[in-house]
């Protein structure tokens, strides 16, 4: 350790100190580079996804025209007379997602409003971890629940409902998404400054009036982000529909029928032994690309909206 700076130091010690500083700098730089390369793995993952999906889909689109892909009303890739109309799978995805959102959006919003504006701290601190646990349940378990619990229950209510149907899968998917919506929406509402609420209370507004006319508009972009991320989640959900909605490609918007979604189709084909380069192999990448583009748009929109509500306050 250096005590007195005025003391003349030998040249050798000086060199030693300099090189120590130098080696310290090199080490710091090396660590920074190492950390940066770890970050690049995430970037490489995205690039890898885009590359693989495009590469395999391009082979597919060499034999099937994009127009057919988007407009054909049949999806029978493994038949002797193959048709590749992605719309068939999309109809299943849209129907099950619509059912899920029809349940999850009102339920999640009411829960978020209640927890953020009405519930006592104790209720909130108990309810939130339970909702988080609900969100942590594996989707295959929800799929099991849809097939063996919700479907039999629905069949007593709706006679003639088939054992596989979009309704049951969609409803369970909705339950799965509720905690997701309520947690993002609640975060957004809690970020609304107290002074806005106090202003409303001072004008004689009740809690509900304050919540609906002050808090909800102020948290709007956060709420919108919650809904959009929920859409993306519903569209990409796989196991619930693969287990409970059936695997029959079916151009329908009727929730009481069975149908395959994009995700369920991929699982069904990939589950069997699939020769690399076969038509079946290529179709799952084309279907995956469609799915990726759909969710990508929603994710970007959700990211942008979420960032906005964070920045305002």
């Amino acid at each position, binding site marked *: 350790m250096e005590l007195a700076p005025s003391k003349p130091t030998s040249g050798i010690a000086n060199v030693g100190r300099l090189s120590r500083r130098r080696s310290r700098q090199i080490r710091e730089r090396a660590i920074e580079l190492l950390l940066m390369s770890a970050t690049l793995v995430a970037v490489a993952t995205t690039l890898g996804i885009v590359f693989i999906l495009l590469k395999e889909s391009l082979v597919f689109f060499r034999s099937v025209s994009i127009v057919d892909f988007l407009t054909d009303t049949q999806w029978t890739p493994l038949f002797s007379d193959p048709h590749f109309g992605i719309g068939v799978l999309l109809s299943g995805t849209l129907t099950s997602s619509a059912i899920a959102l029809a349940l999850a959006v009102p339920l999640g919003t*009411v829960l978020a409003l209640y927890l953020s504006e009405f519930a006592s701290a104790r209720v909130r601190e108990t309810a939130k971890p339970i909702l988080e646990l609900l969100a942590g349940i*594996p989707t*295959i378990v929800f799929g099991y629940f849809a097939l*063996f619990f919700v479907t039999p229950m629905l069949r007593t209510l709706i006679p003639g409902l088939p054992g596989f149907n979009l309704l049951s899968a969609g409803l369970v998917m909705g339950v799965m998404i509720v905690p997701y919506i309520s947690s993002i929406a609640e975060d957004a509402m809690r970020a609304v400054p107290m002074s806005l609420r106090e202003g409303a209370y001072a004008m004689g507004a009740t809690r509900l009036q304050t919540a609906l006319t002050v808090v909800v508009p102020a948290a709007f972009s956060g709420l919108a982000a919650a809904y959009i991320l929920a859409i993306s989640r519903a569209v990409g959900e796989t*196991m619930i529909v693969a287990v409970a909605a059936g695997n029959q490609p079916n151009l329908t918007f009727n929730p009481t029928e069975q149908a395959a979604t994009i995700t369920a189709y991929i699982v069904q084909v990939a589950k069997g032994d699939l020769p690399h380069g076969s038509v079946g192999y290529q179709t799952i990448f084309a279907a995956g690309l469609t799915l990726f583009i759909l969710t990508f748009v929603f994710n970007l929109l959700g990211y942008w909206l979420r960032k906005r509500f964070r920045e305002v306050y």
Partner: protein
Amino acid sequence: MAVPVDLRRVIERAKRRDVIFVVLGLAALAFALCTFVALFANMVSVGWSRLNPDFFTSFASRRAENAGILAAWVGSLSVMIVTGLVAVPLGIASGIYLEEYAPRNRMTALIEINISNLAGVPSIVYGLLALGMFVHYFQLGASVLTAGLTLALLILPVVIVATREAIRAVPGAIREAAYALGATRWQTVKDHVLQYSMPGILTGVIIGLSRAIGETAPIVTIGAVSFIAFLPPPPVSTTFPFLSFEWLWSPFTAMPIQIFGWTSRPEEAFQANASAAALVLVLMTLAMNAVAIWLRYRLRRNLNW
């Protein structure tokens, strides 16, 4: 100007609506709780009779009453080891870089958008990535290694986001104090920032792993099968060189795959197996989540900067 009687009625109506909404909120909460309870009650009532020691020590079988989850839970454990070993260092390193090192420029913003988008990519798309990349391009096959790497990429955003949030919560004064004593950036990060943010990071890691253990779609896509009647070779042996990494290349099955396989069987007896296995899986993920939630609440209580 309203007459006082009318005004009172208006106020009463507004207050009644408040009460109605509270009832609505409680009903929503009750609905969520009931689903939770129904899910559990169903699994317990159908699967309880199958939950005996033999169930954990038997391989899958064509006869439902003999089938067990040995290969499944050993497979899940092996895959989780690979996932953890890959995702944890990578995720923490990325989190540190983005919070402590990265310049605030367009490049960093792009990386941030990219990570947030990755967190929203459907898990089955990761499966397609793995099928094209790991299985066919790198020729790793439907092995423990492929599944572990796939799930590691899947939970990477979770670990990164948790690390960043934990690091962001460490006040700048801690860093300034370290710099003032001549510490380098890395010394500051390693000896101070990381120490304080460790519980938060750990929470994120556990939540990520609990998500990975329940993921089905990506590992179905890479071609994992549900009927496996052997275990991966053990990592340690009594003969030279004592350590073996052959288990990484072994075919495997996992808990969610096993459940999926059993739910697809038409025989009712397999339904009991599916629900017993589902119960085990849920208890595993719930236990992991509970630890994470407990860590976080304890953390919030104890830390007052």
